[in-house]
């Protein structure tokens, strides 16, 4: 299984993707499958019995109170955290301790962090070029060209040779998005990407994410930007106390939540 998806990832994927994205969501294949996933930190159960399927090209917004396990959950999708029970399959690759699987999954999945986590000792351009050169063994010129195109795509081509400390928070986060995209991932994970930003910079990051969603990227976003969720999300997932409480399209979540806890939480933040 792992092998077929790897060949897909490296060669035919863009055209396949285009064809698949023509289909309505229901007819597409599942790119992420989670079944009965559990995670403990010591005795504390951070994620309990989460089952979720995500279609190729789908945008899922995950929200919930702090400490509800939403970050832990998406960090398990690229194995920054290990799940201890249940099953996670990403684009046909079963999540195990096998190093080859791990490498394949990290190549499939890009991640954007709340604190950006840019490498402070490298320029924006070098931040983006690093992984393609070192992991994909892309020639320097090609990596640089790709990086410049990506900076163009996130709207800051003029900042290529600046160090992270010289950029605003919004610019740093856009570089971080470009850095993740440079590995040509199938899936992007966003862990509260706008929570560390000043209000006037949130929009510039959300705009990039909107564009990304429109291009057909599969996205899992932990965020409390409800306007963004209403507009962009195909489905929303409400987490509380480590459990997936409710999963449904924004219309259901906002207008007709099925669970009392969802309603209570939305009342608090809206």
């Amino acid at each position: 299984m792992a092998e077929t998806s790897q060949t897909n990832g490296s060669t035919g994927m863009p055209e396949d993707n285009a064809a698949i994205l023509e289909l309505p969501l229901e007819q597409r294949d599942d790119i992420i499958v989670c079944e009965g996933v559990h995670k403990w930190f010591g005795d504390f159960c951070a994620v309990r019995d989460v089952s979720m399927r995500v279609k190729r090209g789908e945008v899922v917004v995950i929200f919930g109170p702090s400490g509800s396990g939403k970050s832990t959950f998406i960090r398990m999708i690229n194995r920054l955290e290990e799940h201890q029970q249940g099953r996670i399959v990403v684009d046909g690759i079963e999540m195990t301790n096998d190093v080859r699987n791990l490498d394949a999954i990290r190549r499939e999945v890009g991640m954007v962090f709340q604190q950006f986590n840019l490498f402070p000792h490298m320029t924006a351009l070098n931040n983006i070029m690093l992984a393609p050169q070192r992991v994909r063994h892309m020639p320097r010129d090609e990596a640089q060209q790709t990086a410049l195109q990506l900076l163009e795509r996130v709207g800051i081509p003029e900042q290529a040779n600046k160090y992270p400390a010289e950029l605003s928070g919004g610019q740093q986060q856009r570089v971080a998005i470009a850095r993740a995209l440079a590995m040509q991932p199938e899936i992007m994970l966003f862990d509260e990407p706008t929570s560390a930003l000043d209000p006037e910079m949130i929009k510039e990051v959300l705009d990039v994410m909107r564009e990304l969603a429109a291009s057909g990227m599969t996205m899992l976003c932990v965020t409390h930007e409800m306007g963004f969720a209403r507009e962009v999300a195909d489905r929303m997932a409400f987490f509380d106390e480590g459990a997936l409480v409710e999963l449904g399209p924004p219309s259901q979540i906002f207008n007709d939540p099925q669970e009392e806890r969802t309603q209570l939480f939305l009342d608090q933040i809206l």
Partner: protein
Amino acid sequence: MSAVTAGAMGRPPPPPPMTVGYVGWLRKNLFSSWANSLVTIVLAVVLGWALVSLIGWVIVTADWEVITSRVQLYLVGLYPKDGIWRPQVAVLLISALLGISWRTWGGTARGFAVGLGAVAVIVGVIPHGLDILNRILVLAIPAAIGLGYLLAPSLVAGRSRRMVGAALIVVFVALLLIRGIEGVPGLEPVNTRTIGGLLLNLLLALFGIGASMPIGIGLALGRQSNLPVVKFACIAFIEIIRGVPLITLLFMSRHILPLTFPENIKIDTLYLTAITIMLFSSAYMAENVRGGMAAVAPGQTEAARALGLRGWQTTMLITLPQGLRNIIPAIVGQFISLFKDTSLVFIIGMLDLVEMGRVTIQSNLEFIDNGREVYLFIALVFWIFCFSMSYVSRRIERALGVGQR
């Protein structure tokens, strides 16, 4: 008044007078209250008086013959007289290297080259006991710097990598010159026991500094290894070395370690001492490096892993460079203290600069009252080297600070 009201939209109002510039600084730091003003004035008088007395003593009373009549002893110890040109050429080579790096890198290297050249000119021309030959030699230093500066374009052509290569070659040649080469006439190896004075301090510090970086980094990485044997060996080495005073280690390397060697093997004391200092310094460096790497934000490793970098790639590309940058002040601090610690080798009978001073005073009746001159001179020499290191450290920090948060 109108300036203040206009400030809301146009030019911001200027700061109140007497709070900026020299006057502002003086008021804020030295004369902020009548009590502080009193302290300032009293201290200024006391310090000024002390300084005037010291300068008067240095120029009028002090008898510097104890230094000038035996400069060679302080600088190179008992190094053979007929081979004395070898360390001299080594110094000129390194001066030329300084000239080359001035042309190549500017900045810090320029400051150094100019500083050294100026000191050399002053020492070369002030009216004091140096004989004419030594004066010419001292004045050759700025000449060598200038020569290096002129030749730099054809030698390294402004490329940093070639500059580093040139530096390594020059240092290696200088070391070879000082030690000598087997079977080359005129370059016979010297008995290492004759090497002393400042040269001994410098050699030991050079080896200690040069070895402690790679070995220390290796130990720090080994300590975090997943392989239990490697990890345990590194921890044991670090903790044993750090738990024992340097003097004890020097003693053991000189007197106890040789007992464990086979009869026919004799390792030179200088080399044993150098190795001891290298290991000692590496153990401390390892802990510095570990601390620096631990201070790198965990998000850095996560981001690297999320991008698919392997463990060793993450270490070499992300955590190690940032960790080393974190600890530049600590590293230089360690180098400075290592340099000063090299004077501890007197305990195993080596004649370093400090010991040479002591011996000079105690074994020459005519100098028995010149201890002040000797120790002031030694202090000045150590201070110049240590201050140079901390100056370079600050410049490097500033240069690397570009990308820092």
